[in-house]
């Protein structure tokens, strides 16, 4: 396969940044959820949890 | 006593103290945008197609400008002058032909039929590259030192493509550019 180095960098950074961003969102969500009173997490329903 | 119950101004804390950071980022961003827009309007990449470059040859003189054209496959000659690799070829656009001498390594995708964008200037002389008989042959050539490829949006795996490249190379080797 030609240009494998460029491909690995381009694909690797794209997927890596996506995974890093997704992880940061999950962690930020968990951290904030722990600090917000339960009655104020209004978008969440019993079924959806 | 009611005064003590009224909402009071928040105490200056770390969060407030750091408010200058996004403000500074916003300021730097605004400045960068102005610089980039100015850069665009000065048109540093703006290129003349081969036919336009010939029309404007008088006013361009020996100023540096950017040229765009499609290399004629059978005209390509690769050699060297001293230690420096040299590639001579003719580009076409709008029915006009320009002979080019490029000093330095050609672009990886450089080949006949794929447009190139070159930085350089007109030279009123013969190209002087051994084995290169420019198709324009008008007493001028374009001396280039930077080459970029302007590929198209065709992403096709043509089975006859390699055959056509070989035919063009054979034609060049035999000096039969009309083939």
């Amino acid at each position, binding site marked *: 396969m030609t240009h494998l180095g460029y491909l690995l960098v381009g694909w690797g950074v794209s997927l890596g940044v996506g995974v890093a961003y997704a992880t940061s*969102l999950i962690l930020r969500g968990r951290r904030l959820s722990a600090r917000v009173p339960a009655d104020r997490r209004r978008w969440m329903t019993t079924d959806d949890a | 006593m009611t005064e003590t119950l009224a909402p009071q101004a928040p105490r200056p804390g770390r969060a407030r103290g750091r408010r200058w950071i996004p403000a500074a980022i916003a300021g730097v961003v605004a400045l960068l945008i102005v610089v980039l827009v100015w850069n665009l309007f000065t048109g540093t990449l703006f290129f003349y197609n081969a036919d336009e470059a010939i029309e404007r040859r008088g006013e361009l003189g020996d100023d540096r400008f950017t040229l765009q054209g499609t290399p004629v496959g059978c005209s390509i000659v690769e050699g060297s002058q001293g230690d420096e690799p040299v590639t001579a070829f003719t580009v076409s656009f709008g029915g006009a032909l320009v002979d080019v001498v490029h000093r330095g390594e050609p672009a990886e995708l450089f080949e006949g039929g794929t447009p190139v964008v070159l930085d350089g200037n007109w030279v009123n002389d013969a190209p002087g590259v051994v084995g290169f008989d420019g198709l324009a042959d008008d007493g001028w050539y374009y001396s280039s030192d930077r080459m*970029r490829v302007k590929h198209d949006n065709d992403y096709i795996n043509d089975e006859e493509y390699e055959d056509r490249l070989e035919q063009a190379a054979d034609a060049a080797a035999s000096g039969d550019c009309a083939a």
Partner: protein
Amino acid sequence: MTAPAPAPSHTGSRTTRLLGIAVVVGVIALVLLGFFAAPEDDEQQDAVRMIFVHVPSALFTYIAFVTTAIGSVMWLLRRSVWWDTVAGAAAEIGVLFCGLTLFTGSVWGRPTWNTYWDWGDVRLVTTLILLLMMIGYLSVRSLGGDERATATRAAVIGVLAAVILPIVNRSVEWWENNTLHQKSSLTDGNLEDMTLFTIVVGLVVWGLFFAWSLIHRFRITWLERELRVSDLDLALRERRAEGHTEDGDS
């Protein structure tokens, strides 16, 4: 009578879990299709495989910033906090996608154009300006202070950024002599069937990821707002309690 279920300690839900699973499956399929099923290109050879991450990033940059613009307009017209939250969430994801568009385009450009970047290229520079505008948008959002004034300032930038979206998109048509960038691969290009199919798979994966991220980011902003409100409530209660104590002491 059943007791209410405890509130979850995260921003996930059944929808986001399904979206997340679909994204993971989609990425695996995209890697297999992009590297093994899609054919190489005559001119670019295997470098063309960058198109499968570059085009989805570019298209969802537009979609994210259009979402921001719609949210901004809704804030300006109706003072809708929900739409303002959507606008901010979409902007952050859009900045991510826009950065990836520039990065993958640059890495793709080195072997194909023979340069990573050209400061005079109208497509590249207008895309960078768009990215900077949206970084400015996020900076303004994080300035703090009066929330309504901040949202209004950010919304104006969000709408202005949308104005340059068509310029970025059409630049390769309007200023042909100022760009190395080819015209649209999807609308004007000549693509192999499997290449087109793989691009479509990439678009679906990016779309699912965009939806997943938007929901999570929206909920984070919502939680941040709720936290500010509950902190304010708490502070007020404490002040009142202090006031009562002082009254009692005096």
